[in-house]
């Protein structure tokens, strides 16, 4: 059997690689760039600022895209093989803003321009040749020169822990970028100025090794084909367990943010799981023992109703009718309706015992909201499981040999009936990561659900990819654990 598990563990990274690959490709194919976001007004409508919004400059999100490696192709990089014909066609399209005789939309024109801007670093000799060609029109030479500048612009190293070599490279990059930026050709430049700027660009080009240095051939081309891609770059970080930082705060790593939220999500996933498990055993047993009697019928109806009521109805109902303006019975303590605990100003002043009570009070309503649905399903499931076990011969035997009724129920029926539920629970480990989006949103608890949901809305790629990765890992581990649980609970199961 150990062979089986070793094989499963060996397959784990392979499966994970496939999952990462699929997720990565899907995420990269989803349309969308960073955008100028609108603001929400005090009353929830949205407006944009009429006095402080800029046009998106050509390289508006360049740093962002470079930082996330979005300027590279997704899986394979064949850009070093771009020919003059390809470039010529693209330049024509960019100049005339037309493709096959049809005018390009603003969106298409912009993405074409961004696309060729990203490719520019692989075709710099061709671009310089175009910019230097005095027989071409001003606008074509201008376009080629500016694409050349875009191709030559590099990103420096960011952060505090830089080596002397990296600092030296940063100085060189800054100098080089400045040299390129001041030669950007604008619409109102004269032809003489254009010539002068292009000759300075040519000097810059020669200074850095000319055509030889900027052309990839043979092995370098093959290396670029496989490794100068978004996926290779991402994977090289993941292998070192570096999942990056949040998009909006580079002080916070994805891992640290997830660790911060783990207590919320674990509490909201594990506690309801345990309580549900115990309660559904009790209810399932009552319903099975009193099959078709009034407790069975009434509990069945109750669970049917609970199962039918959606969570987005129950959660606001709990807030509006149970919590708001009401106190816990026989006390003057108001029932909290938001957060995992009181606000930091109050919570920080409490003793640890008071903090525990405060958190438990805050958890009451979210737990009810999470539990009622699963309880309804699991109780009915365990009823079926118990009914099946109750009909077994060995249960009749246990009764016949005079064992007390409760002992039979707990020791013989309970344990065997629980197998179904336990294996079902083990495979749902992935739920921990998914969180409970609705409950977290309504009760304003900052768990995984909201974290990942907001990451998707904010296009926080690192977080989204991590959530897909961690979700897959936990689910895969969950399946292995479930297989293990089978062998432990039922000795007849063997994987040899």
């Amino acid at each position, binding site marked *: 059997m150990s062979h089986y598990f070793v094989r499963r563990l060996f397959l784990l990274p392979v499966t994970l690689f496939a999952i990462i690959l699929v997720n990565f490709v899907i995420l990269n194919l989803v349309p969308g760039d960073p955008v100028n976001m609108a603001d929400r007004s005090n009353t929830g409508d*949205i407006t944009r600022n*009429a*006095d402080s919004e800029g*046009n998106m400059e050509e390289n*508006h999100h360049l740093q962002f895209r470079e930082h996330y490696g979005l300027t590279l192709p997704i899986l394979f990089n064949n850009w070093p093989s771009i020919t003059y014909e390809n470039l010529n066609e693209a330049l024509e399209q960019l100049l005339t803003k037309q493709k096959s005789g049809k005018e390009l939309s603003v969106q298409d024109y912009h993405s074409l321009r961004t696309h060729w801007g990203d490719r520019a670093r692989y075709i710099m000799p061709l671009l310089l040749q175009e910019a230097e060609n005095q027989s071409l029109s001003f606008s074509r030479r201008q376009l080629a020169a500016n694409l050349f500048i875009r191709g030559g612009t590099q990103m420096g190293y960011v952060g505090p822990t830089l080596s002397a070599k990296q600092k030296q490279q940063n100085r060189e990059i800054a100098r080089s970028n400045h040299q390129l930026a001041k030669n950007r050709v604008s619409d109102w430049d004269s032809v003489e100025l254009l010539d002068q700027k292009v000759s300075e660009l040519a000097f810059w080009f020669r200074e850095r090794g000319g055509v030889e240095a900027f052309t990839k051939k043979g092995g370098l081309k093959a290396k670029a084909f496989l490794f100068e891609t978004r996926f290779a770059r991402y994977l090289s970080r993941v292998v070192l367990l570096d999942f990056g930082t949040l998009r909006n705060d580079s002080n*916070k790593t994805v891992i640290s943010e997830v660790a911060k939220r783990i207590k919320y999500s674990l509490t909201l996933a594990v506690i309801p799981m345990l309580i549900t498990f115990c309660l559904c055993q009790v209810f399932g047993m009552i319903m099975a023992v009193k099959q078709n009697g009034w407790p069975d019928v009434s509990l069945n109806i109750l669970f049917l109703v609970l199962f039918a009521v959606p969570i987005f109805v129950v959660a606001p109902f709990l807030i509006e009718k149970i919590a708001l303006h009401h106190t816990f019975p026989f006390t003057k303590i108001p029932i909290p309706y938001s957060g995992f605990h009181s606000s930091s100003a109050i919570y920080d002043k409490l003793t640890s015992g008071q903090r525990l009570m405060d958190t438990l009070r805050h958890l009451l309503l979210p737990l009810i909201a999470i539990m009622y649905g699963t309880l309804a399903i699991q109780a009915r499931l365990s009823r079926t499981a118990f009914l099946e076990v109750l009909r077994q011969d060995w249960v009749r035997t246990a009764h016949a040999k005079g064992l007390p009724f409760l002992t039979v129920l707990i020791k013989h029926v309970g344990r065997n009936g629980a197998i179904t539920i336990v294996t079902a629970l083990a495979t749902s480990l992935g739920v921990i990561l998914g969180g409970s989006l609705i409950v977290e949103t309504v009760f304003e608890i900052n768990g995984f659900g909201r974290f990942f949901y907001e990451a998707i809305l904010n296009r926080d790629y690192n977080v989204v990819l991590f959530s897909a990765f961690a979700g897959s890992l936990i689910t895969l581990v969950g399946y292995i654990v479930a297989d293990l649980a089978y062998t432990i609970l039922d000795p007849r199961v063997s994987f040899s």
Partner: protein
Amino acid sequence: MRKQFSLWKGLSLFATTALLGMVWWSSQLVEKELKLLRTDLEELKNEGLYRAAPVAFQAPETKPLTRPHIDPKYPNLLEEDPFYAHTLPSLVGNRTPKGIRKEALIGRPEHLHPFNNFRDVSNMTSMCVGTVAQLKVGKYETMAPDLAIKLEARPHKSEPTTVEYWVHLRENLFWAPLSKSHFPSNFELAPHFAKRHSVTAHDFKFYYDAVMNPSVCEPKAASLRSYFSDIEEFEVIDDLTFVVRWKVHYEDGEAKIKYSALNLTGSLQPLPCFVFQYLADGAKILDEDGASDTYRTNSVWAQNFAHHWAKNVIPSCGPYLFDGMDEEGISFKRNPHFYNPYAVLVEGVHFAFKESFDAVWQDFKAGNLDLCHLAPNQLLELESFLKSREYRLQAENGMKIESIDYLDRCFYYLGWNLSTDFFNSARVRQAMTMAIDRERIIHQNLNEMAVSITGPFFRFSPSYDPQVNEWPYNPLEARRILEQEGWMDLDGDGIRDRMINGKKVPFRFRLCYFVKSLSAKVIAEYIATSLKEIGIDCQIYGLDITDLSRQFDDKTFDAIFMGWKLGTPPDDPRQIWHSAGAKEKGSSNAIGFANPKIDAIIESLNYEPSPADRKKLYHQFHQIIRDEAPYTFLYTPKVRLLYRERLKNVFIPRDRPDLIPAADIPEPNLEVTYLES
């Protein structure tokens, strides 16, 4: 016996584990407290004695303006604000600043970078960082001293017939030290940041350099760059003096600088060199930064600036000091050393981050917030709450709700994409406007909580021409115009069609709106119904904020329902209406509007100094936009600000000539409010 033993064993094992768990947790808490205490002590040690807060408001000292570079020959363009000098002191008397004003924000700011373009973050930055000059309370286009004490217009160095601006900063202005508690617990902050630093002219120059650095890509910097690109030279004379030289333009042979130059000079703010030129370990980002244009050109610094470690704190030197941000909210405390003791009349402000307007409303009802802006569709809910037992109890305990209505400085519109075959004709756009009953929207969908508008300026701005006639609601006329324009029902399916390039095109388009706004949804539904009546199939398309923003930036929508938040005069219509942005991705001219007359007026407004002539130009502008109907102007919403009675001194300047004579601002200013017990 064996069973009993194992039961006890199990129970005691559980109890011991639980006890150990509690002990571990408690020790963690104690350690955290001790760390905080140590940080506080370090801050106290660093700040020394200047931390002591005054017990009551004191009138600011007034000193004669004598300094080496101040030339008494030139008059001060900054005038003292009588409201702060006399009116407010008499209103608040000898009160001590007390209480934390609690407000709520919908959503959480992504970060607090100085060039974050989100309105809430911009507002918070301006609470913590002053500007050269500020508006007088309640008045447009005025300049009162703020971080500068004197602003002089001296003859321009290269063209003496026009002027350059000399700014003389206030002495004893300091950046508060950064607090370690505002950073993640594992973050190491160098001692350099735990000391206070003076606000100097170099900080203003640094701000200008950062804006002008082409590699700084933050949206606010990109937008300011288009304005500041007209600065020819920014010269620092000494730590407290700098000169802003604007480019001289020759209009009809006359040398002129742009009209906006003075206001923009007044709006300059400092960017702390002691933070944004450094790494967290106290080393400089750039080892060699001696050249005067280093920060204006260096791309590596710009990259570090975009991902700066202090991007989630606000270094403060203004009336408020940043006091931390967590998942729940953001806090500010009053700066006891700010030059104007009346700038803030409370101990602090806390903004709670809320997910939705409903969450804000629940919190306000529970008494956790001091104020709340009510949405039109919540009026009935307010009414029923005011009748409830809970509210009666609150009112008896000094928690009565007061309210004040005012017009929000924004307008909502339907933008027609002029590049589509449907809306490229002004006549069709006029017909669309005539087919929609805007009064009905205000009456039925907004509970009268809005006013109708006819143009792109704020209703109470001098630029808005009240004489401009509204397009009447007239579906019959709309039908007639559509028929004249060739839109007729050719196939009898109830939808108008037109032959375009030999193809029959039905008048069927998509109207995008913000799906999470209740009022937007009902208004969009009403518009679709109205247009259906004149034979147009308007399919409504609810989108979340990111996708709606994308449609706007990419100009891929047919029609869009959105709002513009407006600034205070002087209005600058260039951003939305100039043809330069008509075909640019991400430009505010999302509908692709281009009109030579409008462009000409925008250019004239650049240089026209006379208020009367400017007003004439704005009114012409208004009339042309109304006639061209690129937007259907729907309404300007009224806001009902609800506040608990402990918040005092809430008033609308425009309605209180007794406090501020000739005031023109129609919104309450929360910075002059205070809290009573």
